[in-house]
């Protein structure tokens, strides 16, 4: 299983800084929530971790046990789910899974049980023949997650995976995240839901590219003397 350490990580776009000297440790089998106002740098951080952007300063280190891993070994172990996802409207749930199996060259004997488990965990088995274009918002997000998981990654990077997902589906989605975390995956997600931040092992509050607060949610809230993260946002005068 993979761990990630970021050290004094910075990113600037055309000279405008988006992230400033972020350091953090992300251990396997833990679930991390990134929160912060629009434009704080949450998506930029996830894209950097996913290898889609290169840091301007500082470094990202991926490790297995204690050994640093080269990028070529890391890349197939990472899954990234962007905020707006492009699935194929006219392909069914089952066809998507087959397609991503082919894309990641997953061997058939590993694929079958994984596919069955994911369909069971997401409760999408009854909809296996339904085209993605006709799925509800919550189901669509779950399909996106399954496509990301079909290669059995060690790290799952999710950019606001539950936007527009109703409270019941959101709960099911979280049950699924806990299962994956308990399997040893490192899960890092950005969220606009403050109750989700409380459900993570560690919450990271980002503003203007810097950490404002981070740690186990309960400790952060106690330290700041607030009842919840929404109150912390308002207290800090975040936009």
């Amino acid at each position: 299983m993979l761990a990630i350490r970021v050290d004094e990580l910075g990113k600037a776009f055309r000279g405008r800084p988006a992230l400033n000297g972020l350091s953090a440790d992300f251990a396997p089998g833990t679930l991390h929530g990134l929160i912060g106002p629009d434009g704080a740098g949450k998506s930029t951080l996830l894209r950097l971790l996913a290898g889609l952007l290169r840091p301007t300063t500082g470094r990202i280190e991926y490790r297995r046990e204690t050994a640093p891993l080269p990028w070529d070994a890391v890349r197939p172990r990472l899954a990234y789910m962007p905020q707006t996802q492009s699935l194929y409207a006219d392909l069914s749930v089952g066809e998507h899974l087959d397609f991503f199996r082919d894309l990641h060259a997953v061997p058939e004997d590993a694929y079958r049980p994984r596919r069955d488990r994911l369909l069971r965990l997401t409760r999408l088995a009854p909809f296996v023949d339904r085209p993605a274009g006709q799925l509800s918002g919550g189901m669509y997000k779950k399909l996106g997650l399954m496509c990301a998981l079909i290669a059995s990654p060690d790290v799952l990077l999710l950019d606001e995976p539950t936007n527009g997902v109703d409270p019941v589906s959101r709960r099911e989605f979280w049950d699924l995240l806990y299962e994956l975390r308990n399997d040893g995956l490192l899960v890092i997600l950005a969220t606009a839901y403050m109750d989700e931040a409380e459900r993570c092992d560690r919450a990271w509050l980002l503003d203007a590219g810097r950490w404002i607060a981070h740690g186990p949610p309960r400790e952060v809230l106690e330290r700041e003397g607030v009842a919840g993260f929404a109150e912390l946002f308002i207290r800090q005068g975040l936009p």
Partner: protein
Amino acid sequence: MSEPAVLTEGLTVRFGNFTAVDGVSLRVERGEIFGFLGANGAGKTTTIRVLTGLLAPTAGRVEVAGLTFDHGADAIKARVGYMSQKFTLYTDLTVAENLEFAAALRKIPAGVFRERSRDLLRFIDFRDRADVLVRDLPGGLKQEVSLVAALLHDPEIVFLDEPTAGVSPSARVRFWELIRGLAARGKTVFVTTHYMDEAGECGRIALMRAGALIALGTPRELKDRAFPEPLYDLHFPAAPPAGWRNDLAAAGTVQPHGLRWHVAVRDPRRWEDLLARWGTAARARRIEASLEDVFLRWVESPA
């Protein structure tokens, strides 16, 4: 009674043999902030597409701003504003260009457009330059500009489909100030959201499940009806006692809320015994149901 803003009787929409909206009857008064809740796929957006004149119902009666589909879909469209969930603005056009384009589609005379866009941009307290590209706006502001675009033709009723999905907590608070501002200006606001704290801001709420309306009332009424039994907020300051989940399940139903749990107590004796046994390991206090509690209870199980 005065003429309602929206009236449906037995509204039904079928796609092939799939019934998306199943006999929905509701009445929204003018000037109301009306919340429309339900799980993904419950039929909310389909209902809104009918009420905005975009989709003719398969069966049932629909009246919007006093008009029916017999008056023509265009007549309805002229009286309503619609901020859709998927598409709102062209991200590669500026704020001004987006508004001009929306005004041109609505055939708003230039003089009227200038006055309204100035008034509406002031209403949202827009301080950026109008020549900024929409893709460079933060998410919260983008939604506010979308609202302006939906209001340019001065509609009587505004339909907002998940206007705050994915925007920051502070931006959500701001957006709801605008919604209250619209109601104060006499507009009827019909809004969907998956944030239950926002639903509490509505005057009345309709809850949809699988195409059918399963509850309709003020937030207070829905809470009282959904939870006849007492509800408690429970948390464990340190590690929870062994077997707590099973023990609790015997006393009531449990839902996670962030770091805490909400327990609807079915068996008060068992509950008291448990609390006595756990002592200081558990902290519980009686609470009022939230709309999230209501939603989870009714959408997951039959009302």
